[in-house]
């Protein structure tokens, strides 16, 4: 007997297929109205706390012992997870200024903290203490040569300096020192009018 006329009851019929197509279309039509962003981490809603400035050797940075005209990388906000804490967007350059820029005093005014992310193409920049000639010390990004003023975090040369505000000034952190001289980071506010937005920049008063 021929089996040509037999219908496979397990196979998808044309009607079922159209129903599925309609359901998928309905889902896709409403998809843009779902607030997907709330499922992603939002740094602005994270409550930041006062945090100790911990150096790479595990010690607490202190105004009395941190070398003049020197830089170290610190982490903020620290999660405690060594992998997450290594993310460049959590890394900051802690700089003690040279003497000619006010680095000789043992208080927080001798220090600056800027995001290590260059505002041009998000490479990592570094403070280079030339040291021998006053005014030569600056932050250098080897990707295309942006340079930053260590006093203000403003780009003074290279492609980042040609960008419009706020993308020509590095985000910063505010410090305070306790009675022992240990440095602490004050809770940051991630917007362009306060501490800035990492990788984007910060407005500074004219």
């Amino acid at each position, binding site marked *: 007997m021929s089996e040509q006329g037999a219908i496979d009851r397990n196979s998808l019929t044309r009607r079922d297929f159209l129903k599925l197509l309609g359901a998928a279309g309905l889902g896709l039509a409403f998809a843009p109205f779902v607030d997907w962003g709330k499922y992603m981490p939002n740094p602005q809603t994270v409550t930041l706390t006062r945090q100790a400035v911990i150096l*790479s050797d595990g010690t607490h940075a202190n105004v009395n012992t941190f070398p003049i005209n*020197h*830089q*170290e*990388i610190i982490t903020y906000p620290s999660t405690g997870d060594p992998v997450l804490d*290594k993310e*460049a967007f959590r*890394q900051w350059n802690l700089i003690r200024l040279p003497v000619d820029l006010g680095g000789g005093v043992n208080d927080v005014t001798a220090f600056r903290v800027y995001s*290590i992310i260059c505002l041009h*193409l998000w*490479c*990592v920049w*570094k403070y*280079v*203490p*030339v*040291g*021998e000639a006053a005014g030569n010390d600056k932050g*250098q990004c*080897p*990707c*295309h*040569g942006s*340079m930053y003023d260590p006093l203000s975090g403003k780009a003074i*040369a*290279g*492609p980042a*300096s*040609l960008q419009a505000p706020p993308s020509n000034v590095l985000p910063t952190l505010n410090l305070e020192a306790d009675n022992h001289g240990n440095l602490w980071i004050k809770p940051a506010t991630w917007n362009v009018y306060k501490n800035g937005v990492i990788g984007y920049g910060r407005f500074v008063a004219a």
Partner: protein
Amino acid sequence: MKTLHISCTIMLSLGAIFPGTNVALSQEMQPTQEYIQFIPLVPTENSNVTAMIRVFSLDIYCANYTIDHLLSGHDLVLNVRTRANPAERCPMSSESDIFLKQSMGKLGFGTFDVKLLINGTQKVTTKLYVSEGEIEITSTGKYTDTQGDVHIVGDVKNTASYPVKLVQLDVTFVNGDEIMAENKLYTTMAVLMPQTSSGFDLLVDAKNLEDMKYFVRASSFLKDTSKIQQGLKLSTVESSWKSSSGIGTVSGTIWNTANIDASQVKVVCVLYDKSGIRVLDSIFDYTNPQIIQSGQNGDFTLSSHYPITSEFTAHCNAESPQLAISLSETVPEFGMPVFVYVASLAVIIILFKIIPTNSKQSLNFMQRI
């Protein structure tokens, strides 16, 4: 090793699939026994490849030697043969290692298995990756700056016939078979004109990566269509040391030979060791003044990131948002050829004024002379 091979294969495949993507691998050399270092470290098909062979045997230095290379498919064999000469006394006593050079011209795309034979004995096996793209990795190196941070530095060259920009490099750190980290960066020069070079400098921000083996690959670039004008000329580049700190300095002058002003004139120099193989540092700074007007010049002094104790040579390049470096020689000042031309013209005019126009008188005049 399997992970690494798979990764390399994927990288090389990507280079073949996406035009404009250049994939090249660069391995840090291991200065242990005899070794071969290729210059450039990762050539392109347009690069002229030279093998630098480091040998320790005193016999090779004292006796005559010959080098030849045999290329069969992707197998490259370098043969060093010596001929002992007992009558000749060896003039060298302190150093026992020397570099032998063998030029090999251009090689096709692919991975070459390289063997070094000295007097028929196999001494070294290594691999040479020839990139299909346009960016060669000339050499790399590593240094620790004065603040104790480790950097990977290197030199890359545009072997294409057109300018390129946004040259991106990937540095991969490996520990045995395992890829530990991958960092991305760009060259210090924004635009690389044909046959020009740029340094790069990667800050190794993780302490656990500092002693690891690394690979560098030029992963991408864009063709620059801005038709940037040439007009900057480097002159009187000098290398020296600061006696107090041991910091190496490179100083010189840049002329603007174009008819437009150049702002933010940047000089990028790659410092090589005395053998010319290993990169010691990659440095940059802006000229003083930063804006060089047409026909004017600016000075620059670049400092190394750490004290350099041995001899070094500097390979420099310069750019500004308006101008690139001139590849052809241009005289920036009112040059000697122009002076000679004007002087000759003046002499001819004076002579014609003195010499009478009548042919008979001219003859008498000439006879008088």
